[in-house]
């Protein structure tokens, strides 16, 4: 007689391996060392947190006109409140700052529209990448449709920081991809151009490039052919970041198995088709952590424009610290700067993690 095999039914896991209690047990109290570290960390938090809260909130002064109004002994947030507009917009005329706000709201709405199903994603992308920058430029610079002209030398504060960061990121990303593909190309001229560019730019500090952009280029260019300093600095930042981006992307390209290239070739896709449809989507997904790393670094590196006389967010805060009414508010200024930078960079990093999860298709199993 044959015996019929029946798989045993699946049972739920034991209660000790799921739920909050299990989490605490596994993560906080799993071993003597872990128990020690848990209590030690709790003690450190107990020592540090109350004084910080005391300083930042309980004893803080929120309103006032000079350092003299801050008498409670805590943080003098009145300094930030008074200078807030300058920190955000630099020397942009106060009556015109609505233009910056409008541009930011437009961008947020457009990016948010990606979440709406009915919207055509292709048109939206074109609107954001092609139309929006033109609209934003005229909003910022003015001089058309009765908008007052605002020189770029007046642009500053967080506005300038975000502008440099966003344009640097958006422009350096495609440039970096092209450089990475060029470096792996079999065409000797394209390959050597890319290698020389990447190795040269990577070997030079960003400050050097910014000096070149702001001081040297105007010297070399003939009279009358000079162009805006902000644009020169932007090009410098973009080229610098692109060289790093190229190497990150190249790492991703090298991680794609040869079989993927062969399968794409074998079905008759052209070089660009196979790169855009098959290789890059996989390679870029693999290096999202590296790409975001570069983006965050770039965003923070933009503070270096202070060196060439542009007052970005941090630059504005440092300048305000020299105000004789507010001497002694350095800590508040830097705390505020640190918090804003942290919030933006942390946001980027969380976004990249969410993106990685969204793009996961389970191919790691192979």
């Amino acid at each position: 007689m044959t015996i019929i095999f029946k798989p045993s039914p699946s049972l739920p896991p034991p209660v000790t391996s799921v739920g909050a209690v299990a989490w605490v047990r596994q993560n906080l109290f799993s071993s003597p060392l872990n128990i020690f570290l848990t209590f030690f960390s709790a003690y450190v938090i107990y020592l540090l947190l109350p004084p910080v809260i005391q300083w930042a909130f309980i004893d803080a002064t929120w309103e006032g006109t000079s350092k003299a109004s801050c008498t409670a002994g805590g943080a003098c947030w009145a300094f930030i409140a008074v200078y807030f507009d300058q920190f955000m917009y630099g020397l942009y005329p106060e009556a015109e700052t609505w233009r910056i706000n409008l541009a930011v709201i437009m961008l947020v709405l457009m990016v948010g529209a990606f979440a709406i199903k009915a919207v055509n994603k292709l048109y939206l992308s074109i609107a954001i990448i092609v139309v929006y920058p033109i609209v934003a430029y005229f909003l910022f610079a003015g001089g058309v449709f009765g908008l007052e002209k605002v020189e770029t030398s007046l642009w500053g504060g967080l506005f300038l920081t975000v502008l440099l960061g966003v344009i640097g990121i958006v422009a350096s990303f495609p440039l970096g991809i092209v450089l990475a593909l060029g470096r792996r190309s079999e065409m000797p001229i394209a390959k050597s151009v890319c290698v020389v560019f990447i190795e040269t730019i990577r070997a030079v500090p960003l400050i050097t490039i910014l000096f070149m952009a702001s001081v040297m280029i105007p010297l070399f260019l003939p009279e009358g052919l000079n162009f805006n300093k902000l644009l020169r600095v932007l090009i410098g930042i973009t080229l610098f970041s692109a060289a790093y981006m190229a190497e990150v992307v190249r790492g991703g390209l090298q991680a794609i198995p040869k079989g993927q290239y062969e399968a794409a070739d074998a079905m008759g896709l052209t070089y660009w088709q196979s790169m855009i449809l098959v290789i890059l989507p996989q390679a870029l997904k693999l290096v999202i952590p590296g790409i975001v790393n570069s983006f965050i670094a770039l965003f923070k590196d933009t503070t270096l424009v202070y060196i060439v006389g542009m007052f970005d967010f941090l630059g504005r805060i440092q300048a305000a610290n020299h105000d004789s009414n507010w001497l002694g508010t350095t800590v508040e200024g830097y705390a505020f700067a640190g918090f804003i930078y942290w919030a933006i960079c942390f946001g980027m990093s969380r976004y990249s993690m969410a993106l990685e999860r969204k793009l996961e298709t389970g191919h790691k199993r192979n």
Partner: protein
Amino acid sequence: MTDTNMARAQLAQGEEAIIEFNDVNKWYGDFHVLKNINFSIKKGERIVVCGPSGSGKSTMTRCINRLEEHQKGTILVDGVEMNNNLKNIEAIRKDVGMVFQHFNLFPHLTILENLTLAPIWVRKTPKKQAEEMAMHYLERVKIANQALKYPGQLSGGQQQRVAIARGLCMQPRIMLFDEPTSALDPEMIKEVLDVMVQLAEEGMTMVCVTHEMGFAKTVADRVVFMDAGEIVEANEPHEFFENPQHDRTQMFLSQILNH
């Protein structure tokens, strides 16, 4: 031989060669991997290529769609010479489907997208039509219900059947198989071979590198045995297995059949 097989054999006799190797040589650096390959394959023929590893059987097959370049001699596929002319290569690749040992499905695309990619971008088929065709071939390899999954969610045998369907979606005149069952669990080999047998019965020109001798016996019109970069012997399966001419072939067959 059944009547249909007979008819096909006669048809094959009358047709001229669809793939022709003339004195083909290839080197990897100093290593002479293909030596004086002279061989032609007729339309509708099913060729099984076997031989020890490193004998050049995969390389020879991959020269047909120029995944590998040969340095000497000529290869004609469908009357087109495979040389550095990109136009020729792209034209031939449209008509030659390929199935790999490790499937090489695109993990970031769904099964359906894997199948429609080449028809849409290379053949410029409208998306809807490409999808209908893809579903048709998925039915044929019996995994239409998996169309919206990703390759990583399928078993090896299922993935390889998808890979075959992907090749067929370009409606190729020739299918190349490079050890299609070597990376599969024993339980899954049969489902892939069944699809290949079905394909062979429909008269597709097939070049198949494989160690599945059962498949060779039932399906192949000719079995090609290679060693050290040369074709040692090529014969009808019955003759090849029962009456191998060459002592190297005899040794190879005794190695793989006697255990």
